[in-house]
């Protein structure tokens, strides 16, 4: 059952390996991935060991046979936004380009645990978007129709249906935020964010990818207009292709390569309550009050806020943003009013002018950027890696990400998902 490849042992996780290891008191599980020293050169370097970067490396190996790949991570795997988001997965985006990209990602998620042999705990418990006015209701219906034309499951719920689905939601006429109805994507839901990073890391490592943590990129080496490698805190590493997937720090890396991105970095905060028994079996989002909430398997209520308006790289935001979100959630769910907040945290998100990502070639040959996911990248993790691997391997975008190129800011062909795609992510 153990495959030995150099210093690597790969165990397939199954009921049998679990039983076998139980007999050994779980003291003999092999490590999930190696921690190799960086080699002097690779075919491809992926900068950023979050979910998107690890997915990119995995699909480079799996779909394109490129296994001489290094993933460089300045901290620890999944320690950035991958470990800081609210784990919501959905594909209910208004515009065709976004809908197709996010739907590809959702479909990959649906088979991901089997594909990676790692339980990412995908729970398709449904995502409900609330409408608080007649106008909200019309916007929401428009989006549902657009989604259906793109073959994405989506329904409109009346106020009575919402109340039946979520009895603890205040749908009364005296509510501070009256509920007029909602849309629902039943295939949407949540997954375990850390497991997504670890699953991709383990599966990429098994295919030969070197995952190198505590290795910060400090410079991007170029010769003429071509990328030739990167300077890191662990020495120079050469490669003819470099893919950067570093979320909030995208502008910093672009500056190292001598160009500018239409991106601004903002803090985005999330928080959890103390754990309670199951009360909320679906994800509820409200754009108007900018709050989104679900209950984790541990019983905590997981809530997400909006961004702080100022630029920051400090992974913390202001308390009043947390206060506003909690206030809105307590109006929607009066039952939660007596819960205590256990902790809140912030991540740095890379926001584009049109709230859509950039998955693109750059002015530097062989250098690719995957960034601008802003407030909603977790749901796109497998799809983002899948199209980015294609872009790097083939040196041209896949049809799914062709519209997400850098040049859309010059051509004007923006994919304006501000508000249209359910602001909260």
């Amino acid at each position, binding site marked *: 059952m153990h495959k030995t490849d150099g210093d690597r042992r790969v165990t397939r996780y199954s009921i049998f390996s679990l039983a076998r290891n139980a007999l050994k008191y779980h003291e003999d599980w092999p490590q999930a991935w190696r921690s190799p020293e960086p080699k002097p050169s690779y075919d491809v370097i992926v900068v950023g060991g979050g979910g998107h970067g690890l997915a990119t490396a995995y699909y480079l190996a799996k779909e394109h046979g490129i296994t001489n790949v290094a993933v460089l991570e300045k901290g620890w795997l999944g320690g950035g936004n991958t470990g800081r988001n609210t784990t919501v997965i959905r594909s209910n985006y208004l515009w065709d380009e976004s809908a197709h990209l996010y739907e590809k990602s959702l479909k990959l998620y649906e088979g991901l645990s089997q594909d990676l042999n790692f339980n990412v705990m995908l729970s398709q418990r449904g995502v409900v978007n609330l409408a608080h006015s007649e106008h909200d209701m019309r916007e929401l219906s428009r989006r549902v129709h657009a989604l259906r034309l793109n073959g994405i499951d989506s329904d409109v719920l009346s106020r009575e249906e919402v109340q039946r689905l979520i009895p603890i939601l205040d749908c009364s006429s005296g509510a501070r935020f009256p509920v007029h109805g909602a849309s629902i994507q039943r295939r949407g839901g949540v997954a375990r964010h850390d497991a997504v990073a670890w699953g991709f890391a383990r599966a990429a490592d098994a295919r030969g990818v070197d995952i190198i943590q505590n290795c910060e990129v400090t410079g991007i080496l170029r010769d003429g207009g071509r990328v030739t490698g990167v300077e890191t805190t662990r020495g120079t590493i050469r490669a003819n292709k470099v893919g950067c997937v570093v979320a909030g*720090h995208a*502008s*910093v890396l672009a500056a190292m390569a001598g160009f*500018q*991105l*239409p*991106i*601004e*970095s903002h803090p985005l905060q999330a928080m959890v309550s103390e754990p309670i028994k199951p009360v909320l079996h679906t994800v509820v989002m409200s754009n108007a009050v900018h709050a989104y909430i679900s209950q984790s398997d541990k019983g905590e209520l997981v809530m997400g806020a909006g961004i*702080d*308006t*100022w*630029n*920051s*790289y*400090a992974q913390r935001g*202001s*308390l*009043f943003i947390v206060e506003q979100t909690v206030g809105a959630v307590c109006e929607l769910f009066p039952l939660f009013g007596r819960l205590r907040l256990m902790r809140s945290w912030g991540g740095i998100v890379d926001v584009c*002018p049109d709230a859509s990502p950039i998955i693109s070639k750059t002015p530097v040959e062989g250098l690719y950027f995957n960034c601008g996911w802003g407030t909603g990248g977790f749901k796109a993790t497998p799809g983002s890696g899948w199209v980015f691997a294609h872009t790097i391997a083939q040196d041209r975008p896949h049809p799914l990400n062709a519209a997400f190129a850098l040049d859309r*800011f*010059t*051509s*004007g062909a923006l994919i304006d998902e501000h508000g249209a795609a359910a602001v909260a992510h």
Partner: protein
Amino acid sequence: MLLIACPWCGPRAELEFRCGGQGHLTRLTDAMEVSDAEFARYLYMRDNPKGWHYERWNHVNGCRRWFNAVRHTVTHEFHATYKPGEPKPDLPRS
């Protein structure tokens, strides 16, 4: 929560303010003549430094006036706040 010195009202809680992004942007006077790339740069490209940043703020829940600021994007420290039209201060050394 930040404590922000409005150049007109003095120090107030951050709750009263809204950040308006990069400061000292000048409107294109020859928008019809410039290339698409230059227009895109004017319209969409913004400084996003990890360090000191020139920015505009609005005292939206106070005197409702705009002003400029120099703030650090890691420590969040304000180096200066000043009225529009006043000269751009030099950046601190660190």
